[in-house]
């Protein structure tokens, strides 16, 4: 397994968590989300986002509405659902646990 592959795997796992976190603050359309993820250097190829969004939407963690754009095609504004919030809460707890666990282990080494 190459370094790139490992990095990609690590990123992918937390990508959903981050998408939900972004949308938990306020609703956003894919370009906003991509902007945030790119700033955090979490995403390499933009295309990765779309299957994830569809998946989360199908899981009913996300919902969306259409909005006309003044300068381009209509925008799909995603927002988090009640189930999504609950899901995110669980992920937050897991993340804290993992973070602590990783710190503990890497410190010891």
């Amino acid at each position, binding site marked *: 397994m190459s370094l790139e592959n490992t990095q990609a795997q690590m990123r992918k796992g937390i990508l959903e968590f981050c998408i939900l976190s972004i949308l938990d603050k306020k609703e956003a359309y894919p370009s906003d989300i991509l902007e945030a993820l790119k700033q955090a250097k979490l995403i390499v*190829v*933009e295309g*990765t986002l779309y299957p994830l969004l569809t998946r989360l939407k*199908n899981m009913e963690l996300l919902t969306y509405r259409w909005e006309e754009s003044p300068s381009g095609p209509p925008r799909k504004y995603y927002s988090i659902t009640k189930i999504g919030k609950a*899901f995110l*809460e669980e992920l937050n707890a897991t993340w804290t646990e993992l973070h602590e666990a990783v710190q503990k282990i890497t410190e010891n080494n």
Partner: protein
Amino acid sequence: MKKTISVNIKGYNFLIEEDAYETLSNYLERLKQNLGHQNGAAEIFEDIEIRIAELFSKVLSDKKQVVELEDVNRILANLGDPSDFIEQDEAFEKEATEPNWKEDRRMYRDPKHGVIAGVCKGISNYLNIDVVIVRALFILVFMIAGFGVAFYILLWIIIPKAKSSIDRLKMRGKPITVETVKSEVEEAGERVNKASKKFAKTFAESETYDRLRSIGNLITKAFGIFLLFIGFSSLITFLVFIIGGFQMIPAQTENGFLSISEFTSIILSNPSDSQWLWIAFYLMSGSWILFFMITGFNLLFQLKNRWTKMSIISLIFLGAIGIAISIYVGARTGRDFAIEGEIENQVLTSSANQLQIIQETTSSLEPHVVSDGKFGVISIEGDQITNHGIHFEFIPSKDSLFHIHQYFSAHGLSHRKAIDKATRIQHQMNLTGDSLWVSSKYQFPVSDKMRDQEVYITIEIPNQKSIILDKQIIDFNPENELKNEVISQKKHGILYSNGKFKMK
């Protein structure tokens, strides 16, 4: 000079150079291929199209009216090659095609809103019925004979607790109202309609597997209901037996019919055996009933976890213990029947020409003295057990007199014990003139238990003389003595040439 093409994405129009268009449409084609038929493919495709259109709209301005090849290349490079991000997510997507959350409603206990462990509340959440109804059913149907308690505890173990808020959301379904039922039915009708059309079209395709799976699911559920039904009917049988079954033994005491526990106490050698037998009985019937209920419940609600397995295994184990105990008690009791002992109580002699056997019977249930070989009506009076039915045997007499032998026999662990038991049998038989008075009943102490105590009367019949029993004449013809065959076939019995007389 380059040729441009006008393109429309989701109502947004723009111009694009021909070579750029070629690149773009190649990319989209590849995207489509990579997406294949996975769940939400069309949606992902559309979203990416919109993203591309949006990036184009950022590139374009009043000064730049046309999308060029380099723009397209840059944008597509940012998006990434379809094989890079679609394949990555294939595993995810496959997961997503599994039944989603709404269909994946699970059963959880709801201790927050429950009384004890939230089992009833969990069931009511799952089925969307009022928790009061579930509780009432539990109390009404199960609390009898303590079964509710056992069943509740088992469900407590096997139904997982709703730990997270997601579990909480998962465990709730749509409430059952007239409206939802109506819409469900309508939807179902539509689905069936669509499905049958689709089914006709794509029978040969992969849909068949899913269809088979759903049929399998249906069969599993039906089987679950069937097992629950067996469990319930066994429970009812069990209750009927416990409540009413005490009257099922054909035996009487002064207080009416004998109860099962009294009956077992006169059969089993050890008083503790009776208790063991009851424990075995409860273990066997209890685990049988709970086994069917839990298995049925499990199939119906698909509770797959190790607790379910462990419960079922331990129920089978308990049932096996019950069987083992009853085998042990049976073997122990059986040992007490091992050896037969016989004593001759008295011998009477009569010189009558025709001996009349007079049956003395007090019981209207046993009008005949002669045993029919079946289990007679047993009754207990004080410390004595009374049984009915005497065995008669007829053999040729060596002289001209009737010799009447009265034998008592019983079984026991040893010959000594069997003989002792036989000695304690009491039976009335008197000879007055030409009449032999024989009582239909005989008695033995309760403490001897029932060890196959029997009374045999063997009468030696002299040549040319006969006996009257039950208005029938029984005689012995020495001329046929050598032939070992039936020599007298009368209405009520067969007299064999070897002297044995067998009642019909």
